């Protein structure tokens, strides 16, 4: 899922303090799963900002709004009436959701309430780890289902680098597994270690995230 992290409250106070009536818009999908933009977090932020701005002597009315998905225009339409009644919006959705809101209300300031930072899996309560870098040229088929782009600190296609610790952790971060050690272990367990003797050629980065906005057209899905 898309992962986001809380922004410093001071940034949100600074933004909200410019207005009299501000919506705090949550999203019930990814950001709810990572506990920064779901219903509880919307309520918490409304209370926190309300306290902070009252204390500063510039009280603001906050309107909590929950959208099933901020990244789908159809779901935004369900909240139009509420959102039209505010001067500005703090979006607790990922960058996609915040932009979808800003697009729908292009004359209204929409401020991101979170920093979207990764594509992750939930490992445990309160613990997420990235699994994908959305690099556009997936190599999982060659790396036994473990991504060296997202999970190797150096993004190596031919590993391990030689800096792996004795306990199998990464030399860059001792809390992080060396993913190339894991790849080798999995290859060995499957009896396919030889597959890793082939040198992986430089990958095709042309489908990655640089070079401007990605635009994908699939004619078979178009009307």
């Amino acid at each position: 899922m898309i992962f986001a992290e809380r922004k410093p409250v001071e940034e949100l106070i600074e933004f909200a303090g410019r207005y009299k009536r501000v919506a705090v818009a949550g999203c019930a999908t990814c950001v709810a799963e990572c506990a920064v933009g779901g219903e509880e977090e919307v309520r918490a932020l409304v209370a926190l900002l309300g306290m902070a701005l009252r204390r500063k002597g510039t009280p603001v009315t906050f309107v909590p709004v929950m959208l099933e998905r901020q990244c789908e225009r159809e779901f935004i339409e369900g909240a139009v009436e509420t959102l039209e009644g505010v001067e500005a919006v703090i979006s607790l959705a990922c960058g996609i959701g915040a932009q979808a809101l800003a697009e729908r209300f292009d004359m209204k300031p929409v401020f991101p309430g979170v920093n979207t930072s990764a594509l992750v899996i939930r490992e445990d309560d309160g613990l997420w780890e990235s699994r994908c870098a959305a690099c556009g040229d997936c190599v999982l088929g060659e790396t036994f289902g473990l991504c060296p782009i997202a999970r190797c600190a150096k993004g190596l296609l031919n590993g391990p680098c030689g800096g792996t610790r004795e306990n199998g952790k990464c030399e860059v971060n001792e809390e992080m597994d060396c993913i190339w050690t894991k790849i080798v272990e999995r290859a060995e367990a499957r009896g396919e270690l030889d597959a890793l003797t082939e040198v992986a050629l430089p990958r095709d980065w042309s489908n990655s995230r640089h070079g401007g906005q990605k635009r994908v057209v699939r004619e078979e899905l178009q009307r």
Partner: protein
Amino acid sequence: MEKFIASCEKSYDVVLLCCRRCLLNAEELTEAVERETALSIKPFILPCSSRVHPSHLLRLLERGAKAIEFVACLETNCQLLLGSRRVERRVQYVQDLLTEINENPERLGLTRRQSITPAELVELAKERLAKSRDVFTLEVKDADSV
């Protein structure tokens, strides 16, 4: 919890949240609170302290509670094993948020007890209110220590 928050319409001095597993003679709590005329206390007994989310605590403070005293079981006594540990982390999280907005984090506090009487709870509420009134100054780090 939602009904309880909705019922906190006036500004109480202290909202007292207590896990029922560590409270003795719960039936005497209402009387003990009413006996205390110097301050207004709104008590709420929880099935487990971990039922409280940070948003509950923030909303109670935002609705006007001057302080919140949270009483939970000892970590090793928690019947749900992790409840008492979880609430400690949540309380710490909310205290950090309060600090971020220059509010006194001592407006919220956690006490662990194996067993506690209603009279002792009221004493804890008084102590919490006193701490919440202490002058709060943010610790400012000098550039060299950062």
